[in-house]
């Protein structure tokens, strides 16, 4: 049984005041296996962050409709948390709060705005220790210092007393990671954790995440638009388009044989140093706004090179045109792929 099994997840923002509702996530299904790194990849607006927030129960209560299920294997229970599998979407706010931070944790995109500027780092770390592990006072501070040390923040005891603005960008993200792993969660969701950072710092943060996942056996759900991050970190990749998973495969398989025209186009659009001089870039034409609703056909059809009438005959089903663990949602999968082998 997978650690997290998301099935037909939908999130709709009600419009109100005469505006039509927006379906940000439109039937997303994927699985996260324990102790592995799973990627959720897609361009801006494809619903990846909303998926993460829905799993965390952090979407606003009013004006948002959720559907489908997301079953998490909580593992051993505790004083607060019942054991066994639970549906995250079916839990009440209290039960969800008990899981948040202890069984599932999340790292956000912008480390500066994600830390409270007027609260010392130490307090922001110890409050989660107090909430889920009952640690207070000196033991909590000791544990917090150990956590900062583990995520590679030098001189942790001094840093505990400092405020976010006194830390560098990389250091802030490390502090946020320390908070996220403070209670050894079973699932860690990272929503573009490196987008706001310098390239050198990005590599360090990814390295740190990898280490933590390996040591703790924590599963990592990596949400990103950066194919470099996917190539470096994710073992299983789900490509999201317009709120639905269009391709799901292992990393090597996906990079070697991108089969959905969108994934194919994505990989083809990466500029290559060994391409001949004067070779033009190959962007996917149009934007994510050029789409049709999934129930009318393939949302990607308006931008697709392989588009024909058949694409508009209802939503395409997930098929396995190449091998059993490589699922593609397309009626015209790119099978004769001569796409340049991208070494993962």
């Amino acid at each position, binding site marked *: 049984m997978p650690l997290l099994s998301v099935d037909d997840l939908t999130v709709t923002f009600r419009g109100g005041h005469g505006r039509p509702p927006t379906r940000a996530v439109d039937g997303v299904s994927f699985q996260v296996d324990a102790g592995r790194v799973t990627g959720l990849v897609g361009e801006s607006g494809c619903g990846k962050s909303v998926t993460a927030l829905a799993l*965390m129960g*952090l979407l606003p209560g009013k004006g948002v409709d959720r559907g489908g299920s997301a079953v998490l294997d909580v593992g051993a229970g505790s004083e607060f948390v019942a054991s066994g599998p639970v549906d995250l979407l079916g839990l009440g706010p209290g039960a969800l*709060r*008990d*899981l*948040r*931070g*202890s069984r599932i*944790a*999340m790292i*956000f995109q*912008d480390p500066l*705005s*994600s*830390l*409270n*500027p*007027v*609260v*010392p780092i130490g307090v922001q770390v110890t*409050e*989660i220790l107090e*909430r*889920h592990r009952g640690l207070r006072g000196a033991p909590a501070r000791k544990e917090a210092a150990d956590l900062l040390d583990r995520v590679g923040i030098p001189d942790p005891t001094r840093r505990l007393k400092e*405020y976010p*603005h*006194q830390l560098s960008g990389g250091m802030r993200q490390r502090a*946020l990671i320390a*908070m*996220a792993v403070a209670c050894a969660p079973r699932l860690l969701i990272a929503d573009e954790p490196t987008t706001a950072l310098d390239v050198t710092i990005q590599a360090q943060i990814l390295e740190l995440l990898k280490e933590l996942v390996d040591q703790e056996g924590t599963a990592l759900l990596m949400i990103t638009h950066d194919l470099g991050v996917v190539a470096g970190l994710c073992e299983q990749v789900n490509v999201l388009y317009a709120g639905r998973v269009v391709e799901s495969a292992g990393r090597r398989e996906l990079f070697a044989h991108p089969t959905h025209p969108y994934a194919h186009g994505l990989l083809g659009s990466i500029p290559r140093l060994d391409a001949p001089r004067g070779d033009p870039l190959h962007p996917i034409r149009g934007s994510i706004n050029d789409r049709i609703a999934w129930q009318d056909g393939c949302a990607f059809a308006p931008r697709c090179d392989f588009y024909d009438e058949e694409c508009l005959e209802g939503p395409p089903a997930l098929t396995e045109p190449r091998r059993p663990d490589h699922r593609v949602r397309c009626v015209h999968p790119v099978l004769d792929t001569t796409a340049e082998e991208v070494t993962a």
Partner: protein
Amino acid sequence: MLLLVVSAVTFAIFFLVPRIGGQTVDQLAVQYVGKDANPESVAAVKKNLGLDQPLLVQYYDFVKAIVVGANYQFGPDPVTCNAPCFGYSFKTHVEVWPEITQRIPVTLSLAVGAAVLWLVSGVTIGVISALKRGSIVDRLSMTVALLGVSLPIFFTGLLGLALFTSQWPIWDTIEFVPFSESPGEWAWNLLLPWASLAFLYSALYARLTRAGMLETMSEDYIRTARAKGLRESKVVTKHGLRAALTPIVTIFGMDFGLMLGGAVLTESVFSFQGMGAYAVQAVRESDLPIVMGVTLTAAFFIVFCNLIVDLVYAAIDPRVRYS
């Protein structure tokens, strides 16, 4: 910085206050002499009070008096004004400073109690309004808040007096009882003035808090706090309110300082002999030394409160400390 402002204020008071009404030095002296002014007595008064001296010398004497006290040759006997001499009223023949110190407890009691009441109620209402944004509670409290901001104290205060001393007499009369005499009576008599003042101010603070909370509660770090599984009450107080506090503290420093200088209207409405009432009386009687003394004291309170605000800033917003 503090000293600089106080000196500037002293200077301004010294030069401006005696000129209000466009009086010349002679007219001023005539006032001090009283009914039977003749050129000789006026000249004598001018000389004795130093009014014939250059302005800077007069200013020096004025400041010197505050520090070491002064003797005035007035009438047959010299009068002594002990340090800190904030002036000597030649009309009522009293030193101004003891009069002020006698009235400070009244003003202070009024200000402190009202401030506690309006801070607590204003911030609480503001927080609840922000959290229940758009709900009945929000709309109702914001409407009441608007009423509070709009209604002047001489309306709400008088209405309160009318309702609770004659219509439903909870109080027979309202008069100031010193805290040292009877804390219970002190608080009981001050309750209505506090409430009327707090109604006016808490409205402002409720709106201010609501605006601040709406802003901070949509910040990313609130999401982080929720992602940690913290209880909503903790998220609101520890992360939301904490960050929304800065503008509230700013305004509070100003308001509280102003109030320590005398809540003129409130004191009049409830017939309290505080600093404000004293100032009004002095202005009415053109008793310049008193006006100057009270103004100086009030200015000092405002400057002092703003200093405290700056210190509190550093405590609640660490970014201020280093920049």
